[in-house]
């Protein structure tokens, strides 16, 4: 069994349910093809180094799994079909994993820890967002403009012209 790691970027304005749906779909793909799911880590919203489809931020996720290889194209196909996925990259982490159960346990522990951190980070982000909104409401100096105000392309084009 080889270990693979697929990192992918989801568009930043996605709802929590949408994110969960993507995760569930990928888990389904893994299960259908008999791969061992190790963990799915939420790396949070990060600023992109360059715009992708006019988004300046992206929600990064990282999926680890064990398989002989045939699931990789399936996973990538699922990601490609999803409109809210901006980018993905699959990397082979390890050529051969001997003790699957042990690796599984390690990954599960790590996932739990990372999930906790992600939750903390999410809470912090919400707090910051609220603070910024409050500041804006008070009529202070307007903070940096939001990443993307509108989904419709026509509105964006009007602004830029």
């Amino acid at each position, binding site marked *: 069994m080889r270990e693979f790691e697929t990192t992918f970027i989801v568009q930043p304005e996605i709802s929590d349910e949408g994110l969960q749906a993507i995760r569930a779909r990928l888990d389904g793909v893994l299960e259908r093809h008999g791969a061992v799911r190790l963990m799915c880590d939420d790396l949070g919203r*990060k600023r992109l*180094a360059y715009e992708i489809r006019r988004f300046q931020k992206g929600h990064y996720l990282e999926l680890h799994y064990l398989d002989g290889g045939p699931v990789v194209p399936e996973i990538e196909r699922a990601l490609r079909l999803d409109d809210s996925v901006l*980018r993905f*990259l699959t990397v082979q982490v390890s050529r051969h994993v001997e003790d699957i159960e042990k690796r599984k346990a390690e990954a599960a522990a790590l996932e739990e820890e990372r999930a906790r951190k992600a939750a903390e980070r999410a809470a912090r982000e919400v707090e910051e967002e609220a603070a910024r909104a409050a500041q804006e409401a008070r009529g202070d100096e307007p903070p940096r403009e939001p990443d993307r105000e509108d989904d419709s392309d026509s509105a964006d084009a009007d602004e830029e012209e």
Partner: protein
Amino acid sequence: MSGMGMGGPGYDRDHDRDHDREDSQSVKSRLRARARKKARRQKKKGGFLRRKVCRYCADPALPIDYKDQKTLRLFVSETGKMIPRRISGNCARHQRPLAIAIKRARLLAMLPFTGQGL
């Protein structure tokens, strides 16, 4: 560039053999020679020359990870280009995977292909 200036057309016609030798010298070796020269000059001036050490050799625990934006940024110029070994001091063994990691990070928009990216 100063290195090229020496091999001007008039110079070459008079010294055919010199011309051949200069041509066979690669751009990289010329750059390296210049770096050596600079180091020598600095030494002479009494300035201390810090020996460059590969960061990854100095700390074997430091993993080369394409998701580690902060560390990768150290090895990329302001314009997003990879910094050559000759400048960063990395050893060949670590520069190779590092280059791959930088390219992967670019694909995932963690590093810019060009420009500042922030």
